[in-house]
């Protein structure tokens, strides 16, 4: 092999390597999976609810009743919490609204009178669909 052939070969090798380096600078972009969406969280039409309680002769609560719940709430789960003046929970109850006619109603009975009516300050309600 002549000296000239060696120089030619080396030069071509260097040139090809540099050309490859230049090509590698082209940016390849890929992306991971991305799916997104949003939805409104609707209400069944409750703006406010009212509860009443039944008290035994010792001042203990034996029953809590919630009435006039919109018919659209049928099938949803009603949660009720009885709270004292500080907002601390005294007891919580849940039930699924069923058997509604023009409106829905729920009664929590057999509470045993263990909660003093004198301590009850607030009812808190929540309805959630399944």
């Amino acid at each position: 092999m002549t000296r000239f052939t060696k120089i030619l070969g080396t030069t071509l090798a260097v040139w090809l390597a540099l050309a490859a380096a230049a090509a590698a600078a082209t940016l390849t972009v890929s992306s991971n999976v991305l799916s997104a969406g949003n939805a409104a969280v609707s209400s069944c039409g409750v703006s406010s609810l009212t509860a009443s309680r039944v008290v035994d002769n010792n001042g203990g609560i034996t029953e809590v009743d919630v009435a006039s719940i919109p018919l659209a709430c049928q099938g949803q789960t009603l949660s009720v919490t009885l709270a004292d003046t500080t907002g601390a929970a005294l007891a919580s109850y849940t039930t699924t609204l069923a058997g509604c006619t023009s409106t829905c109603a729920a009664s929590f009975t057999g509470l045993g009178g263990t909660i003093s009516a004198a301590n009850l300050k607030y009812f808190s309600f929540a309805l959630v669909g399944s």
Partner: protein
Amino acid sequence: MSKIAKGLMKRKFLFATLLALTMFGAVYGFAATLSVSSNALSAGNATLPSCQTGSPTSSYGLAYDSTLGSTGGYKVSSVTVSGLSSPCASKTVSVVLTDASNAQLATGSATIPAGGGTVAISSLTGSAPAASVAGVQIAING
């Protein structure tokens, strides 16, 4: 000029040409590499694929919080997302609960199990009073 001198000149010309070509290649190669790194700007585009077909559905778990508002109340304690497609398995589903003004109330995320289906997000960051939640945003990323 002698034959030997002519041959020598020809070889020198070829050598000079090859040297020039090599230097050009070197500059071209370095410049192409530099344009990405030195300017710190790279660009390209790609299609964002989606693994989800159909609309996932969210449902909510509630918990009473005595510190909510002035009298206590119910807040959303968990979000369950169902209807997730099987190709989304092992990817992350993120949920944001928003109020009526679209302000963020609480967020949470979880890894979608094998086969997709349903995933429960039981740890939420932030506080979402049940009465304030007006919207939910769901994103799947991975």
